[in-house]
């Protein structure tokens, strides 16, 4: 891809330290990575390796203890809570293992939610409907999450993640709660969205089969990047 050399994520010596009682835990001990626009990257590592922490930092859910993080041309490591909320709203789409849909609301209302926080009101319903169409749920828009299968729920979550046209899509074990057939469908959907729209895709997983479908794997161990492989 032509734009694959434009970096969308650049981190420099990213560290995160938690204090549990008197003990300091170095969840990330200095991570320097670059992810280019349109790339599909897997982050792997055993539990306790710091991959969740890295995902939280890359997704702007948390601030690093030290180090720099430039997301889509903006330095975000020093922003306050509300500024980070704005960044998440505009630049990051999240797909969670457990879908995290609002059970009271219809699929359409769930997809509308990020646009509400963005202050978009005019074309909100139309854009939400288009996003649901693009994930193949045009006929399920008014269903509540409980009336949908796991795979369908994850599609709604993907539509929600993409509706504000984010710079990166963070998927945390996106197939972890699905059977293998729906899991494969979701992976195919994510990869096809990447191909069609050039959305940068970061998948946190421990499943080698999932990781094998990506272009690059970043392996973490003890809070450090152990290896980067293509």
């Amino acid at each position, binding site marked *: 891809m032509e734009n694959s050399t434009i970096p969308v994520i650049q981190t420099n010596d990213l560290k995160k330290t938690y204090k549990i009682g008197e003990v300091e835990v170095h969840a990330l001990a200095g991570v320097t990575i670059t992810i280019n626009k349109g790339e599909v990257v897997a982050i792997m590592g055993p539990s306790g390796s710091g991959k969740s922490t890295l995902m*939280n930092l890359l*997704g702007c*859910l*948390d601030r690093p203890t030290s180090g720099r993080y430039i997301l889509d041309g903006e330095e975000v490591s020093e922003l306050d*809570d*509300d500024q980070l*909320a*704005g960044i*998440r*709203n*505009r630049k990051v789409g*999240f797909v*969670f293992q457990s879908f*995290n849909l*609002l059970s*009271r*609301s219809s699929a359409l209302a769930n997809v509308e*939610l*990020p646009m*509400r*926080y*963005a*202050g978009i*009101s005019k074309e909100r319903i139309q854009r939400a409907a288009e996003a649901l169409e693009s994930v193949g749920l045009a006929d399920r828009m008014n269903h509540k999450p409980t009336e949908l299968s796991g795979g369908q729920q994850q599609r709604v979550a993907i539509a*929600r993640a993409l509706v*504000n046209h984010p710079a990166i899509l963070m998927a945390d074990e996106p197939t972890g709660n699905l059977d293998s057939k729906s899991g494969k469908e979701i992976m195919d959907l994510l990869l096809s969205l990447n191909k069609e729209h050039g959305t940068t895709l970061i998948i946190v997983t421990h499943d080698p089969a999932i990781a094998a479908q990506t272009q690059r794997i970043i392996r973490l161990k003890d809070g450090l990047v152990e290896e980067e492989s293509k």
Partner: protein
Amino acid sequence: MNLGQAIVEALESLSSNKLRSVLTILGIVIGVGAVIAMLAVGNGAQNTITGSISGIGSNLLFVMSGNTTQELTNIEPLTMDDANALLDQFQAPSVEGVAPVVNGDVTVSAGSESTATYVYGVTTSYEAVRNYHVTEGSFITEDQVLGKASVVLLGPDVAKELFDRTDGLVGETVRIEGQPFKVIGVLESKGGSAFVSQDDVVIVPITTSQARLTRRSNDRIDLIFVQSISADALSQASEEISQILRTRHRTRVGQDDFTILSQQDFVETAKTITNVMTIFLGGIAGISLLVGGIGIMNIMLVSVTERTREIGLRKALGARKKDIMLQFLTESSLLSLFGGVIGIGLGWLISFVVGKIAAASGTALNPVVGLDAILLATIFSTAVGLFFGLYPANRAANLEPVEALRYE
């Protein structure tokens, strides 16, 4: 996120947990209902009391012995001569009529029936000054006063108590404190009932009362009713009466040994008393509103805890602190607003029922639900919701997104 969307979302959230919402609202409903009902009953009581005092007559002054504001030693009692002196056209041109009275508590009986009531010993002028009318028979005459006649006029309540009727009683005999009196008439009902019913009385000649019932020395009287020539001349008449009595009693300057009250003074006093009563009752009812508010806070805290994950998700999708704050404050305010509106209805209903019960038991109490009470209750209950929602909402808004998303 704007307020309209917040309200829609809050309604969705509240309706997804209907029973809990209803129970939470109930606290506010009872609180607001109690406040509204108490204020309404208080207002009604005030209207009844001031209304019946006003019924006494607007151009009437009460002259009594003694002074309520100062401690005085040699107080001269009011006498018949004092009363007659007030009729002086030159010294008291604003005075239209004067009615001296002696009064006391007595027991009146007829056959086997007996009742405790109030006796007024009066002169002939009492009829005009107090605007009393008889439904049958005639008022006390000058001859009866001079002759200390054993005659009596019955108030309608007394007549009903003794004879179960208010007509055909002229010529009957009743016993007052055991002494026989001939009934010469029945008084017209004046209605209203406040501190003292104006219908639960018997009226006898003042001389008869002095000699045989209240046993006062010949000249001494308890009270003088003075009628001014008009309501506007009331203060003028009061001043004239004071001058005459000061001269007659040779009082020192600023040490009047008598008190003059107008009907307006009684109304003011009664208003003060009923206001205190209303505030007191409203205050007690207000406590239940406070308890309702704490109920809202409790439920909102539970709700925040339950929805920690949802809050985390919303934050991940870009909700700022004030968005989360607005969401939870809207919910708690809506809860209490609904409670307030339903509570107003409940308060109205209670007032209505109290009015019906009072009417059925013969008490003229008409509770009034004022617009000010409704406004006050609505604003106050919403404020309660806002105030008690503040802490839970703030707690929700300050959740860390990472922690909240991880919450099970």
